[in-house]
């Protein structure tokens, strides 16, 4: 399946029952150099659009919202220890967390890559 995007600049990549979530390259570019990342704990049940993670640059803090509901099954410890990785590879290695999808119908209404990138290129 291909990547989907939210209007809040998260991306989500679905693989079977599990979704990987991160922030878009456009978002990292606008935030600037990240110095702090906080992620939800494994096992936590997230609701769609809930503020679940925080990314902070030198200047400002920004919430990350869960694009869909589900249970956190894995988080990316590398981006917590080295937040700059998000600036380097936001849509690749620097994913933030993985969810066990609760309701696949929530994926409807998210933007496809072409639609998102048309408005949001770095």
């Amino acid at each position: 399946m291909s990547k989907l995007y939210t209007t809040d600049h998260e991306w989500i990549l679905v693989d079977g029952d599990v979704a990987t979530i991160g922030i878009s390259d456009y978002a990292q570019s606008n935030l600037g150099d990240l110095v702090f990342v906080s992620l939800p704990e494994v096992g936590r049940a997230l609701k769609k659009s809930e503020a679940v993670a925080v990314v902070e640059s030198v200047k400002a803090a920004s919430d990350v919202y869960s694009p869909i509901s589900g249970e956190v099954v894995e988080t990316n410890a590398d981006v917590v220890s080295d937040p700059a990785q998000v600036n380097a590879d936001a849509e690749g290695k620097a994913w933030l967390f993985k969810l066990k999808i609760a309701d696949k119908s929530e994926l409807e209404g998210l933007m496809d890559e072409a639609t998102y990138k048309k408005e949001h290129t770095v």
Partner: protein
Amino acid sequence: MLAQEALSLKRTPLHALHLSLGAKMVPFAGYEMPVQFPLGVLKEHLHTRRSAGLFDVSHMGQIALRPRSGKIEDAALALERLVPQDFAGLGAGRQRYAQFTNDAGGILDDLMVANFGDHLFIVVNAACKEADEAHLRKHLSEACEVNVLPDRALMALQGPKAEAALARLCPGVSAMRFMDAGPQNIAGFECFISRSGYTGEDGFEISVPAAQAEQLARMLLDDPDVQPIGLGARDSLRLEAGLCLYGHDIDETTSPIESALEWSIQKNRRTGGARAGGFPGAKTILDQLANGTTRRRVGLRPEGRAPVREGAPLFSDQLATHPIGSVTSGGFGPSLNAPMAMGYVPAALAAADTQIFAEVRGQRVPMRVAATPFVPNAFKR
């Protein structure tokens, strides 16, 4: 930014240069200002500490205060009626930090004042400059001419390589020491240079006629050691240096003593001094100097990596329900490689190493009161 807002924003003489250098522009104090350049806030900050950074601070107000009598002492004594600092004792070619106070002892603005021999040269904050001008005219017009200098730009060149970069164009600056100030010619431009700044680094502030500002900036940027730096890094640099930002760390409700600026009040203006008092709020401020204050501005070091931002409430312990104060500036220090903040706490909790807590996203974050500057300053005294 909204189109309408952008239309009403003022531009500095370096606006076109910022755009050509790829700056990201934001509204600040009524001006469209560069918040960062392509290097980014973090690298701009580190570059300034390691090499040299060029800042546009043309939004700040520049004012000449000329004594009607022709005697500089008369301008200095007149100004002393508005600030708790000693200006009659400030020699020609020297600069001093001051605050305009109000009758309650609060701070109307903080400012730099230089003695240029025949007049005083004043630099004030952008957001306060109209009010400051009116304040000066209202109280000092009998003794002084108040000349606002809107046709001058102001830039700061900061960092360990600032002296070498500026000395290439103006060899005289190498002889200046911290807080020396005066008119100097750079490449035929009539500049006012002070050896000062707001980053904690050695460096210079350069006032230049607006028409020549871009040319001078380009000459400085021709030096590979010099990079343009935006407001984002200016803020993290000044916070690491423990310096107050007006409207955040100090304002009309904070006295110079509460805000831990008593070092800026010379003995002559204190109780028992030759010209004790005689400025707005003197009774309150001198009483606080003698007897202390109930609250105090302190440096704060949060534990862990999470920045604690402006507005975060402060608590005496993990479970306390009533805040004891709040954070007035907070962020991440790239050179400190850790979060840092400033805020007001009760005097009893103001000692270094006292543990308090801030509330961030519903969680109590432990922090310790810490001495400032967070990063040692590098002034050339």
